[in-house]
């Protein structure tokens, strides 16, 4: 067979180029879109995270000031001083003042979050009228000498008519002197 001439070679080359283009276009449609989207998503996530972090860092002063403000209202205890008795007696006093009968109360282990300490206290059983319960919770919220947060409150009608019976779990927050 004769060797292909220049024109035939040219035609073969042109067909080759056209095929390369076709392959490129096919690959483009098959692969590029998802690949680009994945890469763009990865970039958006990383860039978004960086921007969020940068924004927060730029707010350092704001958060420092807020923390100092909030910290000022926090009860302060001497280093090493036990707080369980303080808080339990305070809660019991508030309950008594507001006619809430506590039948069973216990406390958990002190939890340290940075320089803030939290003591969980469980009022496992109490009985009171609705009015007394409301007053007791109001007293907890507005106490000057303590920071209380009611985590859970479960109440049901008591056997005693006009009374409620239930349980409260709350935490007390405070700090210690360094």
């Amino acid at each position: 067979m004769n060797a292909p001439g220049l024109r035939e070679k040219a035609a073969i080359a042109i067909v080759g180029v056209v095929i390369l283009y076709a392959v490129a276009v096919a690959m483009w449609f098959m692969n590029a879109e998802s690949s680009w989207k994945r890469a763009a998503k990865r970039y958006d996530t990383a860039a978004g995270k960086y921007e969020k972090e940068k924004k927060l860092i730029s707010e350092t002063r704001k958060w420092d000031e807020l923390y100092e403000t909030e910290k000022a209202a926090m009860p302060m205890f001497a280093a090493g001083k036990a707080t369980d008795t303080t808080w339990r007696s305070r809660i019991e006093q508030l309950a008594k003042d507001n006619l809430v009968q506590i039948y069973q109360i216990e406390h958990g282990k002190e939890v340290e979050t940075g320089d803030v300490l939290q003591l969980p206290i469980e009022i496992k059983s109490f009985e009171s009228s609705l009015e007394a319960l409301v007053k007791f919770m109001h007293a907890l919220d507005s106490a000057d000498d303590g920071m209380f947060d009611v985590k859970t409150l479960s109440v049901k009608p008591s056997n005693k008519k006009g009374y409620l019976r239930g349980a409260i779990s709350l935490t007390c927050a405070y700090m210690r002197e360094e």
Partner: protein
Amino acid sequence: MNKGVQVLAFVGGALRRLDSGEKGREAVLALPLSRMLVKMVLVPEGADPVETATPILKAVSPYPDEPIAVSCETVRETPAGRVVLAAALPESAAEDIAAALDEAKLNVVRVDSIALGAIRGLWQDIGIDGGEDRKLLVLKSPDGAVLVVMDGTAPSSIRAVADGADMKRETMFSLLEAEDFNGPRPLAATIEREIDIDSALAGVAERTDEVGSLNAIPDSWLEVLEEARFKTKLFRGLAVAGGLWLLAMGVLFGVPVVYDFRTDRAKDQSRAHAKAYAAVSEKKAKVKLVRQYSDHARGALETMRAVAEVMPAGITLTSWEFSHDDGLRIRGESDDTASVYEFKDSLVEIGGEDDPVFKVVEMGQIGSQKGGKHKFDLDCRYEEADE
């Protein structure tokens, strides 16, 4: 002359270029007259110059069986017809030239005579000023002499003279030939000059720009030229297509690479300020923690108040389970189901559309019991945002 076309001569067995600054692969080639078949030919009115001249040149060709490509340049119009300068380059006589051109990687676009270029360069020198005086030019070069009989500015005879030939005899033939083509005239002057190649090449370059000037390029050289031009165009086209293809591929695969590069950079930047970020995050978490204690907006008491405010008449609650983190689950009894539905809708609306207290309020099964009461339970969840 086209840009990129060089002008060169084949003298003394080697190529010599006109220093014009052109460096293209195409060239106008000027040859010694002794290398070419050149004859003055009278072409009768209406006859084709090439057809007329071809048998004449073939008759003087040392390669009579070889086809030749004849080119004609009109020299003068006479009552008997046109006098043309017919020229051809037999391939067999130019093999060494072709080899030199191949070595120099040049393709010839036009073949001319050095002597004709030299006459152009000597125009003022030899005193041809538009008169019709007959002058004999003897142009000498290393490749032999050329005798040209000029009648004014047009040649009436041109012939190469081999080394050792009888000059007187050759001169006589030239003058007789001039008489044949332009009648008898007295010889006004005989001028002898050494051909200056650079000047001759400049003359050839000038002649190249003129329409109808001689081009004795052989057919096979022309084919090589066309093939070379086609190749150039083809490679250029393929290069452009390949370039576009590479660009497309570059974009196709490059964009994810660029994205990955930018992603890595963003991660590096995050790492660079990780310490500062951790410190502020910790401070923010502490503020959030402390605020849980000082902010009672969604505390147990406030939730109780908000629910009590929207509870319709006829509803009695039998169980209340509040969770600071999750929300509220309440059970109760109602005189009718409409009150339960109203209660559920009211719970959804607490806080308004923009800032609802409960993002989700789900109602469980409503069951009837003795005494016409309907038992229900409602699950209200905060799903509080992170911040």
